[in-house]
């Protein structure tokens, strides 16, 4: 399961961001129009399906000169982002 909480210019994720949950998250992320912080602190897992949603959102925001900032990224998820080259197209802290 993936829990998504949208706050003021922030999206807080918890659980698993996988292919089974990606479509639900896609709706949320494609609705973003401002610079947004995505909090990974309680995210356990992300696969290419989740990365695809983040990439689509980043492209959308980039067209408006905005972007996503990924925070509290650690461990395996950091590795996955690195293997995907996302550390070159996202601000990650």
């Amino acid at each position, binding site marked *: *399961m993936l829990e998504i909480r949208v706050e003021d210019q922030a999206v807080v994720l918890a659980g*698993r961001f*996988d*292919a*089974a949950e990606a479509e639900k998250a896609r709706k949320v992320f494609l609705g973003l129009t401002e610079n947004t912080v995505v909090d990974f602190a309680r995210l356990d*897992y992300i*696969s*290419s*399906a989740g*990365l*695809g949603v983040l*990439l*689509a959102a*980043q*492209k959308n925001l*980039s067209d408006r000169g905005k972007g996503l900032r990924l925070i509290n990224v650690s*461990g*395996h998820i950091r*590795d*996955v982002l690195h*293997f*995907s*080259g996302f550390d*070159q*197209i996202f601000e990650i802290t």
Partner: protein
Amino acid sequence: MATTTTTANDRTSRALFALLDLSKALSSQIDLDALLNVTVEKASAVVEAERTSIYVFDAVRGFLRTSHAPGIAPTEIELALGSGVAGDVARTMRIANVPDAYDDPRFDPQFDRRTGYKTRSILAAPITSSTGQLLGVVQSLNKTTAPAFDLADEALIVAIASHIATAMERARLTVSHLESERLSEALKLASDIQMRMLPGATIAHDDEPFDLYASIRPAKMVGGDLYDFELAKNRLYFCIGDVSGKGIGSALIMALTKTLFRANVPYYEDAARLTEAVNLRLCEETGPTMFVTAFCGFLDLDDGTLRFCNAGHDRPFILHADGTVDLLESKPGLALGVLPKFKYPLQQMTLARGDALFLYTDGVTEATNAAEELFSVERVRDVLRQCAREDASNVVDAVTRAVDQFVKNAPQADDITMMCIRYQIAEGGARSAGVFPRRIDALPDIMKLVDEFFATGGQKTRYAVELALEEIFTNMVKYNATGKGDIRVDLAIRDQDVVVTITDFDTPRFDPVSEAPAVDVNRPLGERREGGLGIHLVKQMMDRIEYSHQNRTGTITLRKRLN
């Protein structure tokens, strides 16, 4: 006259008692030498002679010899047929009663001259078997109570000869019986040794990714069939063979062939080069009339790749996971032991998970019933169709039972050998397996399987395994949405590696590793696309990815070192 009668009666009864004595002694003796020693003593008493000898006829060399003349030097006396009185008796098979030896032209005085003995009278009779064959001659010298032997003595020595004949025949039968018993003991030992050379019925355990069962039933005490298998790391060697002919000669070649194969296995990666090495040695060691058919191979237990070589052997069957049965496509090379430099072709196929190989010798297909009908390849195939998905031991048992029911009481003419090897992941141990519907929403259930598998450790490897499994599974669902049936997932630990196997039982060939588009992760955002990232991550995070496809079954095997 009354006195004479009494004397004659006394003599007759004494002779009868002595004969009875001899008869008892003979019936209790089995050893021929001991028997003849007893006879010469008793016979002298019966006919009242100074000494008695027995000449045994050597049918092979055609002369008589004796070592049973007490009081004479232990050198054996040999007589040619027709030479001397005994030689003449042997030749004519007639009794000789010689009152004065020196008056008889047949008598050879050399013996007397050599020993200082003085021969006067001679009584000799042929010893003949129940079928009239000459066995020897019994000869008594020097009547003690009269100058010469009389008619009564002639009758007695004929009776003695008949007793000796019976005893000699019995002794010979006993010896030949003992010899045949000794031979059958030796054969039994040879049979034990031969069976012990073979590796037993199985080496498959619950934690092996294969199931194997073999059986052999020689037609005679020792056989010319062989089978063998050996597991080394992730490679299973196997071999089945059949030596031409039967009996001890074939059994020796069988032992040689099995040993040559096994000795060479560690040095060859390639079944064809292995076969060539064995063939070369067999050509050197065996005569031109002996040959061996054999089928050997290596099964890679990581991906089911089967590399094999066929040296004139019957083609094995493939039992597919879906229950269908095919003969393995294979070019039959020349039998072993025929041409030392023959180039054997290496052949290759991939066993899908659940597929099995069924190997046999022609004792199975050529098992013959009372009506002279052969069991045939077709009957084997029919039985295999009934049991294609069962355990290897059940497959072998089913064919064995079918052959037995077919031949009924007809004698077994040839060795019957079978071996079944199924490529599979067995249950139990650090293993989890499940089948899942072809839908993305099966993912939570797949992750429960992963939870179960990692329950006892390996958490550091877990993320990579979860991710790779999800990516491959969703890939299969997306690209083969119309495939029938479920998708199977196997997780296992082998040699410190986590092995993930994902099998689609109804799919065209699609190797995601080589056929998916490459992803350049260093492109700027504007040039990045969502697609292809999954396979890219699998390549990044797993140590090894292998794809196999056979008979609409596609299998992806992933390995990751356990941390």
